[in-house]
């Protein structure tokens, strides 16, 4: 029974991390078909804002949401200055956002230095399946669940959510019905960035914040989003679930490296079989 819990924990933890880093990207991609390669750096920015706010005296449960909001605002700025000129030019957006990511790394390194920073959480330890695990990992798992829930609730039950979904499915029709799609795009990008920043902030107590941390996660996030397909919520959940499980199990059985390589190989096969992603065939839904 202990072993089952251990596996459940490893998988749950790996899946949660994937959700944290890819939900924002999935929303942005699902809405505007923009592949934001600066996503990893938004994550990193969220981590740094968290460290900053926390060092100014705020407790963690305030610092984390604040970080999310700040990154959201930053995302809006990026959208207005760079992204909005490039809608429809998928590959150009790819490259421009790559430039944004390099820029962000450069700025953060200049301002905060190349070393990493951390905050310790006071949450303590938890015993799962005979092993001691960091209490904070439970917070991460909870955080991922909350993010998914919040996004679902907003999209499904609010007016704004309805408009967003409509714009996602058929932008021309939405425009014909009077929606300001430019504003919707901006809001979506902002919200997606905020989610990513939140994710980054949540990771800090266990993983720290360093200027190049984005690069560690962007590959995985990217693959999860593409494999997930056009529907942000279901796509993210299924892709994260799949890859997180494989990563969690393989890393525990063998080693972290092998876990990551196997995930990548599975991704190649998945893309070959389902080129449009897991939710590629689904027109409706979230």
């Amino acid at each position, binding site marked *: 029974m202990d072993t089952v819990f251990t596996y459940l924990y490893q998988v749950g933890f790996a899946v949660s991390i994937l959700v944290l880093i890819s939900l924002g990207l999935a929303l942005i991609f699902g809405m505007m078909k923009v592949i934001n390669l600066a996503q990893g750096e938004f994550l990193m920015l969220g981590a740094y804002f968290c460290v900053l706010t926390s060092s100014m005296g705020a407790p963690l449960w305030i610092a984390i949401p604040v970080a999310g909001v700040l990154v959201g605002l930053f995302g809006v700025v990026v959208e207005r200055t760079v992204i909005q000129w490039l809608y429809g030019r998928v590959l150009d957006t790819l490259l421009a956002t790559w430039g944004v990511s390099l820029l962000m790394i450069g700025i953060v390194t200049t301002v905060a230095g190349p070393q*990493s920073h951390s905050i*310790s959480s006071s949450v*303590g330890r938890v015993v799962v399946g005979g092993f*001691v*695990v960091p209490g904070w990992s439970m917070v991460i798992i909870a955080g991922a669940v909350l993010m998914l829930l919040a996004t679902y609730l907003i999209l499904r039950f609010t007016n704004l959510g309805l408009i967003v979904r409509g714009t996602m499915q058929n932008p021309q029709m939405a425009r014909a019905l009077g929606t300001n799609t430019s504003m919707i795009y901006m809001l979506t990008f902002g919200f997606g960035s905020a989610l990513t920043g939140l994710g980054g902030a949540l990771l800090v107590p266990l993983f720290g914040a360093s200027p190049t*941390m984005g690069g560690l996660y962007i590959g995985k996030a990217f693959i999860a989003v593409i494999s997930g397909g056009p529907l942000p919520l279901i796509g993210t959940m299924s892709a994260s679930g799949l890859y997180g499980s494989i990563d969690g199990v393989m890393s525990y059985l063998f080693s*972290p*490296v092998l*876990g990551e390589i196997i995930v990548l190989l599975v991704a190649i096969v998945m893309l070959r079989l389902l080129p449009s992603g897991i939710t590629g065939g689904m027109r409706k839904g979230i």
Partner: protein
Amino acid sequence: MAVDEINTAGGLLGRPLELIFYDAQSSNQLYSQYATQALLRDEVHAIHGGVTSSSREVIRPIVQRFGGLYVYNSLYEGGVCDRRHVSTGMVPGQQLDALCPYVINERGGKRGYILAADYNYGHITSRWLQKYIRDLGGEDLAVEFIPLDVSNFSSVLARIQDAKPDVVWSALVGAAHMSFYRQFHSTIGKDEMMIAGTTYSIGREQVELSPEEGEGIILATSFYDSLGTEAADDFVSRFHEYSGETDYIGEYGEGGYRGLMLWAEAVRRAGSPEPDAVIEALGDTSFSGAGGLYTIDGQTNHTTMNIHVAVQNDKQDFEAIQTFDQMDPVDTQLVCNLHENPDDTTQYEVEL
């Protein structure tokens, strides 16, 4: 700082020193280009620098080809036998000779679990660790190699808990690996298990981790800021004044100073800055610095130095346990003899 100090005191052999600076941005391609440029266009008398083993291995052949002198000031895995290369940093033969007996004999760390960075430094150091552990009657339960970009140690920590060692030996390197110490503190904690690090403090870990996360970690280094000797305090205050900052200096920062001073001393003994002349004068060149007396061993072009074993306290600082005087680079001395084989350029590795 070393260059300015020498110049203020009248220069080296009466001539001012000039420092040319290249930032290779951790790219082996740029290391290659800059090293060649330095030797061919700038016609420098010595190259100091390169931190990672891969950069050193790119620079060495270039220095050999164009007849220069390369001073490598970083701790590394040992074994380089090359008369145009001088190592002023710590090697496993010195560090582990001091660290392992303390941890195993005096702290009872008989059962050890080794975590090492997955590149040649980690591989070679872990082999040395296994050798020392076994020779001292201990047990090496397992060795795991962690790639430099891995920061999620949850599976590793689960396996460690399974194995129940007395001590975790860490040869981890880099920003991602620092998360290990954080995650270890959030899971196992140092009440149950010790951590001994071979690279700890190089990345200023003690400053960046919280006090609780770093407390109790055991390390051995050739210099740390609060060493407490007159020479150490003097160096630290001079450096703070010179740089205008009070950040932790440590072995890496002091290594650059040490290397330049040793080279300058060798130049004085040779009477000329030309590389070939300086190389002849390297043996027995010594300099009394912040960590103690440093002497270059002519047989290996490595440096004999004091090794200080310390433990991190609850204030993100180190407390001295013991100083081992004048430890020779025995690991490299076993395999390298530049007097007998002056054309040797190999890096030797330990076999178990």
